């Protein structure tokens, strides 16, 4: 009796998990798994298109749309977001802006880069950039330091005349990052990267529930998240962290 039940449940689960609709609705681990870059953009945090670092995502939209992408960033990286907007042939001048949010949807500041730019009437394209702060492995909850996890990019027009509303525009987005290395390393690490829905995802994995196939963010760096147990902030030959700072700090760990 019990065996029958288990067997039938397994079969049912198999059938459910693999019917065409469900199969299609299972997001592949990451859109760029097959090496191609996405050609669409999402319209909200929830539907943001996932794009890996080092790939150029493209999207077509209309002036007035809010275009969302998300990318993974790990500790020690300093991501640079560059966006290129192809403007319609005729327009009356538009101001575009790129904003970056972290996995908690907190706005992240740009160290430098032209985050907002205005295109004069007739300009064919404009480029925006945002260099984020270095992603730290750990920070206090009261700080809004960038932490490893999902990052959201929102590209939108902020200054627009009604005549330009809805005109077709093209967008390109690319995220590259510079490895900062040990100088940015901190002690401590998060148990889970700042990926929205990570708690739901891990519990769904346990239960193997086919209905929980859609996740908020399934993003992960190519070589996985750094676990944090090995820190380059240790005692390298040139690292000042090893040496006594001053007699006053003696004994403090």
């Amino acid at each position, binding site marked *: 009796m019990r065996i029958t039940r288990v067997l039938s449940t397994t079969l049912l689960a198999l059938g459910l998990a693999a019917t065409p609709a469900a199969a299609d609705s299972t997001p592949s681990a990451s859109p760029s798994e097959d090496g191609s870059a996405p050609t669409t953009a999402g*319209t909200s945090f929830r539907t943001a298109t996932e794009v890996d670092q080092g790939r150029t995502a493209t999207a077509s939209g*209309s002036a007035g749309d809010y275009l969302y992408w998300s990318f993974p960033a790990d500790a020690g990286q300093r991501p640079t977001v560059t966006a290129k907007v192809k403007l319609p042939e005729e327009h009356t001048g538009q101001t575009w802006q790129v904003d970056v949010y972290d996995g908690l*949807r907190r706005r992240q500041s740009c160290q430098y880069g032209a985050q907002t730019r205005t295109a004069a009437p007739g300009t064919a394209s404009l480029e925006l950039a945002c260099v984020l702060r270095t992603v730290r492995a750990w920070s206090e*909850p009261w700080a809004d330091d960038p932490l490893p996890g999902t990052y959201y990019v929102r590209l939108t027009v902020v200054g627009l005349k009604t005549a330009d509303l809805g005109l077709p525009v093209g967008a390109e987005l690319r995220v590259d990052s510079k490895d900062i290395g040990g100088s940015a390393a901190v002690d401590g690490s998060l148990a889970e990267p700042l990926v929205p*829905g990570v708690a739901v995802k891990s519990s769904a994995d346990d239960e193997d529930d086919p209905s929980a196939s859609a996740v908020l963010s399934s993003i992960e760096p190519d070589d996985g998240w750094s676990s944090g147990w090995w820190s380059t902030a240790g005692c390298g030959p040139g690292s000042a962290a090893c040496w006594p700072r001053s007699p006053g700090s003696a*004994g403090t760990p």
Partner: protein
Amino acid sequence: MIRTQRLAAGLCALLAALTAGLAFPAGAVADETTANAPKVNLVLDVSGSMRAKDIDGGSRMAAAKQAFNEVLDATPEEVRLGIRTLGANYPGDDQKTGCKDTAQLYPVGPLDRTEAKAAVATLTPTGWTPIGPALLKAAEDLDGGTGSKRIVLISDGEDTCAPLDPCEVAREIAAKGIGLTIDTLGLVPNVKMRQQLSCIAEATGGTYTSVEHTDELTDKVNQLVDRAADPVVTPVATRGADSCAKAPTLKSGLYTDREEFGQERWYRVDLDPGKELRASVSVSADRAMNPDYGLLVRAVTVHGREIVRGEAAGNGRTDVISTGLRYPKAESDDDEAPAETVCVQVTNSYSAAAGVKTTPGMPLELTVDVVDGPSQASDVASFGLGRGWWLLGALVLAGFLAGVLWGWLSRWRVAVWRTN
């Protein structure tokens, strides 16, 4: 590559479906998949003005028909597609009758391409433009199921059925919390129409596009239908209270709610020692807002002490304002330590000009994640030996020992050389 994956997935699916089909009546399985199938309702304006010949030399209607044919061919298998018309049947002058003129051309369901195309071919531009009533009916068509729902409205003129403002209708539909998005496309639009259609889109988190050419129309509708097929997490509707005591207790997940201007929303989360609470909140600007706004999320103990807060402020055009917070609760020595109730308070400082409706409130999206706590400052200095005076001591000791060892070795070598 994606195609290959889909093909492979399809094959697997076929196999599995066969296996499952042997053991179970097919109906049960089909029900399960249709329940969360994405639904799209295409709402097409067939009013008299669609006769105008200004899209690539052809009439607007011809462009729409051609676009529909191509879209119907490209619609993904899993999408349940329906078509609704407005202004297709009543050619008269009576506004009252003309404004009720909306009909379901093809019901929302599994798509029979030939039938749907045949239905579209019969359309001739006729009557009024009752956008508001058509949207209401279109939303009814999509009722039921847990999948994503999308209305694509294609129109060439603003609503001619005042006083029912289609923008208000859209907001009411959004407020039902059925997760419905309305995308609008304006054919050869004028200023007033642009404003109206983009207002409808913004009220539901959709997009507005101006269309001047047939291929633009085809591409955009295809893109929107494909977007509907993309899987998204469906949020759970909840209702925050005005104080922590009455607040609903949330577990990890995605929630939606509504928050009015100046309203407080409270939620509770139970947090075990050694766990970390992550909450992020977004409040959408779904109506015309004043250009300066803010959002505050606070984690507060049941006794009212603030633990941590997330703040956001901004100005200018925006769709949403969002912020979040993290609260790692310290490990407890006591294994039986009870979970702490954390109250999460959400307030916004949006404002709108007089005359803008304040109810229903703005859509609020809340993500709650309870994960293991962070590990703080792992001691790379190995119990303090790696730095400070301890390190100097260790180096002196090591140097002394090395010296002794080397000296001893040298003596031994000299002794060996002497004996030989």
